[in-house]
């Protein structure tokens, strides 16, 4: 449209440049990106290039296409991000449909038949079903979540590209994650969060003074929900606490002591877990318990009921049995909506610096009224995942071999190491693999570590290990040992 070119402050054309008045589509986002103000982040420069960058230059990865994932994809696409990848290893289940709105349950009406069985009508069962339908189908159940979600978002928001990945996060090469500027998590497990946290923290390189090289930092926006409660937070590895530093924020996961299950059950869950964890192994020897097998679940339920009767515990239902055995997390749409949107907002802020970022953790509780609070935290300087150098004092005379032995005995690293390789400022001091490198670096094991480090009394070594997802950075400080001799004072 000719007159658009004459307006000096006209909004840039949007994705489909067909002159159909589409410019106004991004009017809302542009309000944020085309103006300055006293709440913008450092280095914010208002301008149409920002929205173009969001559309063209940014790649965001969304991990999880479930309750949070669906909401995240919608919010990010509507906010102007043009290239989104989504990864999820699950297929769609009917119990997802109360909140994962990108997945549909659809009644498709087949041809009208003159005589209908009441059973067919009953299976249809829609309250609003007035037509005479015979062909009811749960459209999406069983399909991969990532693929259906990607397709639906692209259908609804013109111009966004969403690439699905139907696999586990561990199945991807670590290099895969390097392609994204920001990673947003809609995960449901601590282990998955821990994994991706280690990957991202492993990418960070540190300067001599322990400060991170900004170009190696990939921010992580993490959301989590359970029933009415949820949290959203921003992790900027090297600067804010990483997931590992702040593990204490998560409530302890519920496990029951075996003695309680065996001797003194008090709750329905105790009865159920007894049947699940103890009785099954005793009474159905060698049989693998399959939680999706209704006969197995019914067996657990029956045994739990009996135990409940024995100990005078009521309240054991089939539904509860499923919930306890499968560790079902109750979930509703609104909590996911709030948490995902908060994450999307932070992602937008990080990408454009259009407003002050969250500092750094938000808790949402929807039960008694509403509780929405942001809390700043400090990172743990000795966190083994994200620290620029976990301190370790060693003897001046120590050899590389002894140093490795010390690492393996240190309670902080024990569980994370099995066969550690050591490098110093990019030089391999000792490599466990491949065989050729191992042979080449083996003589170093007998060398004095201080000498291998060029005489530096305190510096950072990088430890790699197949058990580690990222890298363990250890700041070694050499101290005077009891058996070393100060050559200058010897003889006086």
């Amino acid at each position, binding site marked *: 449209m000719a007159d658009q070119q004459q307006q000096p402050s006209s909004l840039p054309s949007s994705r489909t440049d067909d002159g159909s008045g589409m410019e*106004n*589509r*991004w*009017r*809302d*986002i542009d*309000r*944020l990106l085309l103006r300055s*103000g*006293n*709440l913008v982040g450092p280095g914010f420069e208002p301008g149409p290039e920002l929205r173009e960058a969001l559309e063209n230059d940014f790649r965001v990865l969304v991990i999880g296409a479930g309750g949070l994932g669906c*909401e995240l994809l*919608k919010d990010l696409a*509507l*906010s102007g991000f043009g290239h989104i990848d989504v990864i999820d290893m699950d297929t769609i289940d*009917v*119990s997802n*449909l*109360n*909140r994962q*709105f990108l997945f*549909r*349950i*659809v009644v498709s009406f087949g041809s009208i038949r003159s005589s209908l069985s*009441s059973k067919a*009508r009953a*299976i249809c*069962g*829609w309250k*609003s079903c007035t037509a005479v339908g015979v062909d009811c189908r749960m459209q999406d159940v069983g399909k991969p979540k990532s693929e259906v979600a990607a397709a639906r978002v692209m*259908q*609804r928001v013109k111009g966004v590209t969403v690439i699905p990945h139907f696999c586990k996060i561990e199945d991807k090469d670590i290099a895969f994650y390097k392609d994204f500027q920001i990673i947003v998590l809609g995960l449901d497990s601590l282990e998955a969060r821990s994994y991706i946290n280690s990957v991202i923290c492993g990418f960070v390189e540190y300067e001599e003074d322990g400060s991170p090289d900004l170009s190696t930092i990939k921010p992580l926006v993490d959301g989590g929900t359970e*029933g*009415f409660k949820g949290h959203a937070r921003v992790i900027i590895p090297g600067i804010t606490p990483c997931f590992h530093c702040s593990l204490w924020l998560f409530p302890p996961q519920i496990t029951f002591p075996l003695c309680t299950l065996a001797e003194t059950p008090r709750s329905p869950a105790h009865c159920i877990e007894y049947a699940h964890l103890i009785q099954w192994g005793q009474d159905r020897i060698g049989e693998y318990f399959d939680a999706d097998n209704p006969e197995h679940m019914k067996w657990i339920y029956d045994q739990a009921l009996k135990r409940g009767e024995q100990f005078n515990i009521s309240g054991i239902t089939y*539904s509860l049995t499923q*919930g306890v055995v499968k560790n*079902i*997390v*109750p979930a*509703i*749409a*609104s*909590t996911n*909506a*709030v948490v995902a*949107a*908060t994450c*999307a*907002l932070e992602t937008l802020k990080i990408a454009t610096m259009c*407003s002050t970022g*969250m500092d750094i953790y*938000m808790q949402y509780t*929807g*039960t*008694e*009224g*509403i509780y*929405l*609070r*942001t809390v700043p935290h400090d990172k743990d300087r000795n966190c083994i995942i994200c620290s620029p150098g976990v301190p370790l004092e060693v003897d001046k005379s120590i050899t590389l071999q002894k140093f490795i032995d010390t690492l393996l005995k240190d309670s902080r690293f024990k569980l994370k190491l099995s066969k550690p390789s050591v490098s110093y400022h990019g030089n391999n001091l000792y490599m466990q693999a491949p065989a050729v490198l191992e042979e080449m670096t083996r003589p170093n094991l007998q060398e004095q570590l201080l000498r291998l480090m060029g005489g530096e009394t305190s510096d950072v070594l990088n430890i790699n290990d197949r058990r580690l997802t990222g890298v363990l950075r250890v700041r070694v400080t050499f101290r005077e040992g009891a058996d070393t001799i100060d050559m200058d004072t010897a003889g006086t």
Partner: protein
Amino acid sequence: MESVSELLTEQEAAIYDRQIRIWGADAQRKLSKARILVVGITGVVAETCKNIVLAGIGSLVLMDDSPMTFEASAANFLVPFDELEGQGNSIATVCASSLRDFNPMVQVSVEEGGISSKPDEFYDRFDAVIMGRSSLTLRTQVNEACRKRPHRVAFYSVDCRGTCGSLFVDLQRHSFTSKKAGDDKAAQQDISFPSLQEALNVPWSSFNKRTSKLLFALRIIDQFEVDVGRRPGQLSSQDLPDLISYRGKMCAIQKVPESFVPDNLLQKLASVGGTELPPVCAIIGGILGQELIKAMSCKGEPLKNFFFFDASDGKGIIECVVPSQMNDH
């Protein structure tokens, strides 16, 4: 052979399993009888509709005759892009069609005409009314109409402007059960809400210093829009000088200093006009959706009675604005 109604419940039980584990089958049944009216469909209202439809309310009636435009679709996920091309459909019609896809078990329909022309008996068809962006005059009018009906019609009004969002709740007299921390059983409680007009009449001088500034800023904007006859959400930076002198007048009437309402807050709100940010709509829509579910299921303490949110600092604040003579719960 089971009856159709039992099989219906089985169907619902499968889909609603995850939420029934939270609020119970009884609450879910109450929810499935709830009849909701929504007036004025902005982005935040669309989000709310998504949440309550997914949750399984009984029926939803949409009222918004405005024509579909690209601007309207910017923050509204219910509008498929291709359907915008001159088909002459109203926003309500387009959104209704999408909502039916989200949950075919909910009856979604469209009501034409303006709300102010509806007779009093119109509200008897509903258990709750949600007003989207509308003039303060219309909001108070609808709120009064709801309060006159023989059975309780819950009232909500919601609006999002830029990074800010606000919510007002009036459940009149409401009974609910809630489990306090440390208690074994849920206890029944009663709570009463002032009307919108009663809340508006509370003098500003009675508020404490920590009250959210958004409360006053939005009130000024609401009143300004009414007094100069502007459509809600049509303000721009050019209105700022008039808005500032209007603030002076209102603060003088209310006997509070002008610093009560910071310049930069008014400037921010004026310059965004009526534009909505999708993630802010999703947050407020999530909270409002949950409030409606609590009210209809009578489970859980409802928000009383104003909520303000600003994405700039991520803070969500509840303000309880009641006339002093009301027995405060």
